[in-house]
Structures are given as structure tokens and as C-alpha cells.
């Protein structure tokens, strides 16, 4: 203050000195500020540093929590699994049992006679087979009332169903089904033989195969060697027993006008015997294989 007063006597020099002093003052305050700045930045830095530490700490804490939670979940699932798998296996066992039973019921049709219960009674399925070949299946839908009755069926009309049911249906259903099974299997077998002859051995036949609905009368003209010079024979097969697949009557005749040589006669008799004892298509298979043997002998 005193400086300021003494200087104020000299107007110009006062301005100079005071101003100079002011300038120095501002310089000092600036320097002080500059000195303080690093301090403040440092403060800021340190503040940020602590903040970073804090955040890191928080992050680690959360990570740890997550890990803990996962571990807990794992622990809990490992705890639960044994119970759940127990349930699953029980269910699976039952399911497998049920499928097994279903499959057995479905496979029952291979036994020849199988059935399914219906609201009215039972639907019986009769499967037919011949020489290990599965053939057609036929159905009889039975109404199990006091006198059992047939509701509807798929039995061909030429099978004597009315006769068989009149005899056995009321008294002994088992016998009824077994008899029907016999008739149907025999019919299927005869039909199979006739179909095989027509389709596989057409080369041996000199004319069309004559047959009827029951395939119990077959008439045809054939040659034992299709390309050979053998004479055609006429065969007539009768199946008087509808429960068999082999004929009861066989006649093999010769068509020509001149008398048969002894070898031909022997052949004719042998063929007759073959038709009696072997199924029709097997007889022709043996003709075919004999033909092969003959060819072999010619070649050698």
C-alpha cells in the first residue's frame, strides 16, 4: 500500500510500477496455477485410477458370481439327473414292452390264424401259404352272440362257406376255423401251382391252361421238351378232395393217331406218376432240368 502511495506522487512512474507489480502478480498467480494444474490433473488421474480399480473390482466380483451360479446350476443338475433318468428308463421300458406286444400281434398273422377283438366279437384273419410262399389272406368277421354268426367276410363265393358254417359254427368255432383254414390253404396252393404253370412254364404248354374257380380241374396239352421233337401229351388233373393240393385223379393221354412206342408209353406212365406225387410246377421244373441235362450230353 505504501509503495502504491509513494508512487502515486509521480503519476507516470506510478502507473508503470503499479502496472509492473500487477503484471508480476498475475505472473505469480499464473505460475501458481501451473503448479496447481499438474496437481489437479494428478488428482483427476488418481480419481480415474481409483475409478478403474473400482470397476475392475466390480467386474471380478460379477465374474465370480456368474461362475458361482454356473457351478450351482451344474451341481443342481447333477443332483437332479439320476432321478430323471430313472423316470425315462421306466417310460422307455413300458414303451418298448408295448411296441413288442404290438409287433407280436402283427406277426401273429404268420401263424395262419390270427384275430382282433371287435366291438361285435372277433375279426379272424386266415393267412394262406404254400411251400413257404405267403399267399392271400382271408377275413371272417364273427359276431359272438349266443348263436355265433358271420357278419361279413372276404371268402371267395366258390368256397363252401355255408356248408362249413352250418356244420361247425354253432357247435365248435375252433373246428369251424380249422376246416375253413384247410379249404383256403388248399385252394391257395392249387391256385399257386396253376398260376406258376401258366406264367413260368408257358413254353412247355401247347395250348391255354384250362382251369376253374376252385382250380380243382386242370386240363392242358404239354411237351416235356419245349423245343424238342417230343410229342405233346394231354394231361387232365382232378382234385376231388378240396382240402389237398395234389390231384386225386390224373390222366395223361397221347394225342397222335399212331400207337405209342414203348419208350413213349413209359414216359407217359412216368409223367402220370409225377403229377400224382409232385406239385404241378415242380413237375415242370424237373422237365426243364432234364432238358438241360440232355443239352449237356449233346454238347459233350
Amino acid at each position, binding site marked *: 500500500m505504501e509503495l502504491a502511495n509513494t508512487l502515486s506522487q509521480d503519476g507516470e512512474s506510478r502507473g508503470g510500477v503499479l502496472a509492473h507489480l500487477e503484471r508480476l502478480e498475475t505472473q505469480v498467480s499464473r505460475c501458481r496455477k501451473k503448479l496447481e494444474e499438474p496437481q489437479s490433473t494428478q488428482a483427476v488421474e488418481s480419481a480415474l485410477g481409483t475409478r478403474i480399480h473400482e470397476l475392475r473390482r466390480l467386474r471380478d466380483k460379477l465374474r465370480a458370481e456368474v461362475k458361482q451360479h454356473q457351478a450351482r446350476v451344474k451341481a443342481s443338475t447333477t443332483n437332479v439327473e439320476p432321478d430323471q433318468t430313472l423316470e425315462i428308463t421306466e417310460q422307455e421300458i413300458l414303451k418298448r414292452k408295448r411296441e413288442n406286444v404290438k409287433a407280436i400281434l402283427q406277426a401273429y398273422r404268420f401263424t395262419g390264424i390270427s384275430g382282433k377283438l371287435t366291438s361285435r366279437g372277433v375279426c379272424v384273419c386266415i393267412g394262406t401259404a404254400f411251400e413257404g410262399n405267403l399267399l392271400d389272406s382271408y377275413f371272417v368277421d364273427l359276431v359272438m352272440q349266443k348263436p355265433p354268426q358271420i357278419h361279413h367276410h372276404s371268402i371267395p363265393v*366258390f368256397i363252401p362257406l355255408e356248408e362249413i358254417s352250418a356244420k361247425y359254427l354253432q357247435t365248435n368255432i375252433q373246428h369251424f376255423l380249422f376246416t375253413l383254414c384247410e379249404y383256403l390253404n388248399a385252394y391257395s396252393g392249387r391256385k399257386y401251382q396253376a398260376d406258376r404253370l401258366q406264367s413260368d412254364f408257358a413254353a412247355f404248354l401247347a395250348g391255354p391252361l384250362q382251369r376253374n374257380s376252385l382250380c380243382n380241374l386242370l386240363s392242358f396239352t404239354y411237351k416235356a421238351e419245349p423245343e424238342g421233337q417230343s410229342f405233346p401229351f394231354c394231361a387232365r388233373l*382232378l382234385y376231388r378232395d378240396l382240402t389237398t393240393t395234389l390231384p386225386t385223379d390224373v390222366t395223361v393221354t397221347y394225342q397222335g393217331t399212331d400207337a405209342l412206342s414203348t419208350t413213349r408209353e413209359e414216359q407217359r406212365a412216368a409223367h402220370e406218376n409225377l403229377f400224382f406225387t409232385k406239385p404241378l410246377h415242380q413237375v415242370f421244373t424237373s422237365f426243364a432240368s432234364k432238358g438241360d441235362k440232355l443239352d449237356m450230353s449233346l454238347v459233350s
Partner: protein
Amino acid sequence: MDETVSEFFRRTILKIPMTEMMTILKTWNFLSENQLQTINFRQRKDSLVQDLVLLCEENRASLKDAALLDIIYTQFHRHQKVWDVFQMSKGPGEDIDLFDMEQFKSSFKKILKRALKNVTVSFRDAEENAVWIRIAWGTQYRKPNQYKPSYVVYYSQTPYAFTSSSQLKSNLPLLGQALTIASKHHQIVKMDLRSRYLDSLKAIVFKQYNQTFETHNSTTPLQERSLGLDINMDSRIIHENKIEKERVQRVTQEIFGDYPQPRLEFAQYKLETKFKSDLNGGILAEREEPLRCLVKFSSPHLLEALKSLAPAGIADAPLSPLLTCIPNKGMNYFKIRDK
């Protein structure tokens, strides 16, 4: 070739629609492939028929060949005829039927020829076990009329024969006799069953129309199959009489089954019953004599129509047994009298 035979050929071939011409000629198998190739099938039908008749003449076609062509045409157009059904019966305790088709044919022909000198009988085997027979009838003094033949379809070792209703009714007893004797039966009776649809008649008498059976192998359980009325289609629609609708569906399904019905065109009921009335008085109520009237139901597919009556709400379920017994009894002609 005889002029009458030539004319018969012309008229038979003319009947065949152009779309079926090739198929039928090939089935006939009288003209070979090479011969058919020489014919221009794109020309007008008149000239095509002329060419074909000429070709037949060149190949010395006979009446027998023409009759065979006629059978094939009829087999393709079986719905054009109305078929009756005859049932034959044997005596009790007969031997096993050893049916010989050739024997049957020759026996049948012989019987007809013995009775009527002038008759043309032709056969064509069909399927595995059936025969179509064509009979052109003449008299002692007149040649057979080839334009009004009768047809018989017979399945061996069955008691049924299907005949096209012939306009010449006087020949029916002779036809019946020939059939019975040739197939080794004793009696023949005409059934009250008639339709254009030969396959449906066969399904009815051979009992082949219901071929759905419950097995363990079936994939669709019967109960789950839709019965035609999807009641729960839209949840905004509430069906007031749902229970009744379901009852009607159930009853209809029990009676008619799930299978396609055999096709018939009509059912005819001849009533000879006394008039029954709820009202006390009335002129007809005291009438002693039965009232005669004929009720005929016609439809392109009668049984399907009857099946849809109750679900459509037109009739009560169950329907009258007179309507529902048709395929079971094998009848569509009924005579109803008072008991």
C-alpha cells in the same frame, strides 16, 4: 362273305366310338397289327368302317368272328344293358363240383341247338374263371336275329348267372334250362335284383362289397376316421344339436359301413297293404281290400343317396329296414303285403 354277315360287321363296327376303335380292334385280335396299319384311322367314320369291313372280307371273317367282336363291344359297354340275376341251386349232398369249362360250353350249346335249330351261341372267357355267352335267337323257320342277342355272364362253381334283359322273353325258360343243366345244377330262380352295373350286382351277390376288416396291421384306427361331418371346424360356430348329429353319424356308419356302396339305380316297392290311418274316419280307413300302389326310388347311385339322407337331415336315423336291407338281401324289387 354273306351280305347279312357283312352288314352285321358294318353295324357292329359303326357302334364303336372312335376313341375306342383301336383298343377294341386290338382286343379282338382278328386283324393283325400290319393289317391295321394299312387303314387310315383319321378319315371320316363312315369310310373308316367301310375300309374295315373290306379288310374283314379279305380275311374271310365269319359270323363267329363278328359275334366275338359284338361280345367285346358289350364288355366295354356293359352299362348299356340292364342285367338280371339268376340263382341256381343243387340238390342236397351233391358231389364236389368238378367244373370243366369246355364241357360246360359244349353242353350249353348242345341244349340250345337241340331245342332251336336256328341259334348262334358264342363264348368269350373273361378274368380267371368267368365266361361271357352271346346268344342270337331264331326260330324253326327264321335265321337268328343278330341285332337282339342275349348275354349271360357266368362265374364257374358259383350259383349265380347274370343275364342281359332280353326283349325276347319267350326264350328265357330255355336259357335258364341250358344254364342249369350245363352247370350241373337242379333249379334256377330269378332274383329280384336288377341294375345296369354288372360289377355292383356281382359285388352284392358274391358279398364282396364290404371289404374293410379290423386287423392289428391297420394304421388308421376305425374310431378316429372322420365320419364326414367335421363338427369342430370353426370354434366360432356352436352346433346346437351336436349330440344328435353324432348319434345320426354313428347309426349311419353302423348300418352302411365305411366302404363304397354298390351302385344301383332304383328300388321298387309294390305295396299291397290295407290303408292305415291315424284319423278315425275317412273313406279309405274302412276299405277291406288292400290298396295297390308302386313306390319307386331312383338315383344315379341309390345306396349312397340313402346313406346321405339321415346326415343331411332329410330322414330320421335309423332308416327303414326296407331301404337298408337292399345289399344284404340282394333285392331291389319288393312286394309288400300285410302279414
